[in-house]
């Protein structure tokens, strides 16, 4: 029945248009949240760099004491893996790519006979891992969109505890890094022991490519660059700064470093959460913009189909009338 088809199409178009209103609104909200996240990232940067400088300084002050808390672990029997994703979806591949990278890292470590204890941030993580029968030791929720310093502290305390108690030899962090509006990528960082100054913080295992964006190689080399950049203020001027070597420490370096390490981890996690939030909103904005565009496209196509259906209906009707008239005339003539 021709009229029925037209009505069905009209209803579909209306439904797509109202979906588009929602995706458009989400796109705009995400855009404003990006700005807010970026402001917070910028505000966090001086603290993070200051923290890196102090750790470098302390490590230079007493390399022997630093050995325990810095560098690569000599052997790994157990490892803590921390994965940071979002509470909500509708953000393209943001959650999926980080979770996939985490899963691969966990599989890789397990294959080497290393026990893995998994901690996650974000509501999307536990359901993903439950489905894959991967146990999550502890999951933090409700903080991924606007992470506060207190949130970062509680996460840091939980993930550092096994390391400080000597139960694991390494703590790894998998999260999405925000480089620019056009480039975010998943990266694996070593949280504990603290990465050796001057070395890239990117762990040797499981650097992963984000879909369609910067690959693993770009990811690692970027971290190298940024490290070099950070130390531009720390290590590089040491020659003319001449403070390296006779810096005083109160209390002694070993005590200081053991107290400083948890603070450094807090700072790293906070930064990762902020960058994760910024990446989330960027991904969400992109996904919602694509969805709105697709809705436009669908409406266009469906309108065309609907018009043709209406035209067909009209044509059929005319044919019927003409046919009827013809039949009448013939019967009259006969």
């Amino acid at each position, binding site marked *: 029945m021709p009229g029925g088809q037209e009505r069905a199409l009209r209803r579909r178009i209306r439904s797509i248009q109202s979906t588009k209103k929602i995706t458009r609104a989400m796109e705009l909200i995400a855009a404003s949240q990006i700005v807010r996240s970026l402001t917070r990232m910028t*505000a966090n940067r001086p603290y993070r760099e200051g923290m890196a400088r102090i750790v470098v300084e302390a490590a230079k002050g007493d390399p022997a004491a630093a050995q325990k808390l810095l560098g690569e672990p000599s052997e790994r029997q157990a490892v803590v893996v921390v994965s940071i994703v979002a509470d909500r979806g509708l953000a393209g591949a943001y959650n999926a790519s980080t979770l996939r990278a985490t899963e691969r890292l966990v599989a890789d470590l397990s294959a080497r006979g290393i026990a893995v204890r998994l901690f996650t941030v974000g509501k999307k993580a536990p359901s993903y891992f439950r489905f894959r029968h991967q146990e999550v030791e502890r999951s933090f929720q409700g903080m991924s969109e606007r992470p506060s310093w207190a949130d970062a502290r509680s996460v840091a305390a939980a993930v550092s505890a096994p390391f400080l108690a000597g139960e694991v030899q390494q703590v790894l962090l998998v999260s999405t890094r925000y480089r620019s509006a056009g480039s975010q990528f998943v990266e694996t960082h070593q949280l504990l022991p603290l990465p050796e100054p001057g070395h890239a913080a990117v762990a040797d295992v499981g650097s992963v490519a984000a879909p369609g964006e910067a690959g693993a190689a770009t990811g690692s080399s970027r971290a190298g660059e940024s490290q070099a950049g950070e130390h531009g203020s720390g290590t590089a001027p040491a020659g003319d700064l001449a*403070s390296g070597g006779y*810096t005083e420490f*109160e209390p002694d370096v070993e005590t200081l470093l053991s107290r400083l390490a948890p603070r450094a981890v807090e700072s790293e996690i906070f930064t990762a959460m902020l960058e994760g939030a910024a990446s989330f909103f960027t991904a969400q904005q992109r996904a919602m913009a694509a969805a709105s565009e697709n809705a436009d496209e669908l409406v266009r196509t469906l309108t065309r189909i609907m018009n043709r259906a209406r035209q067909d209906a009209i044509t059929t009707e005319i044919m019927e009338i003409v046919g009827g008239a013809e039949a009448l005339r013939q019967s009259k003539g006969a």
Partner: protein
Amino acid sequence: MPDGAFEVSVLTPESQLLHVDARAVVLRSSDGDLTVLNGHTPLVTDVVPGRVRVDPAEGDPVHMAVHGGYLQVETGLGLGASEARATRVTLLAGTAELASQIDVARAERARAEAEARVEELRAAQGRAGTGTGGAGAGGAGHAGGEGEGVVAEDLELAEAEAALERARVRLEVAGAGS
């Protein structure tokens, strides 16, 4: 930059609290009170919770409540804009606020709340302590469960005590600072 002044920044994870040219920074580390002047020897130290005073090159001293942190003093050539010997001081604190920004009424309320909480937890712990002593001969599995409970309680108590300490520091700094 005027003579005898140096760059001071006070940083928290969420903001840069202060960035000025100063003549002196007065604070307390775990080894005792400390005043940093221009040309101070390079130093890395912890900062115990309490008042930190920064004397800017111009204007009135700035008081801050710092809830624990770390201080780095860098002195050497080529720091800052000039080629000459210069000092740069960086104070990193998880939480810190300017004395002028402290809400005394709120801090007062927070102190009362924290005090009540600490007392409540201490009392509960006292009871739990004697309880564990009495039931000391209980099964091993049971003891494990209790142990965990005590750890969680300890954490809560530590948190409440930290909150109380923060409120005290705030009130102390706000009282004499402004």
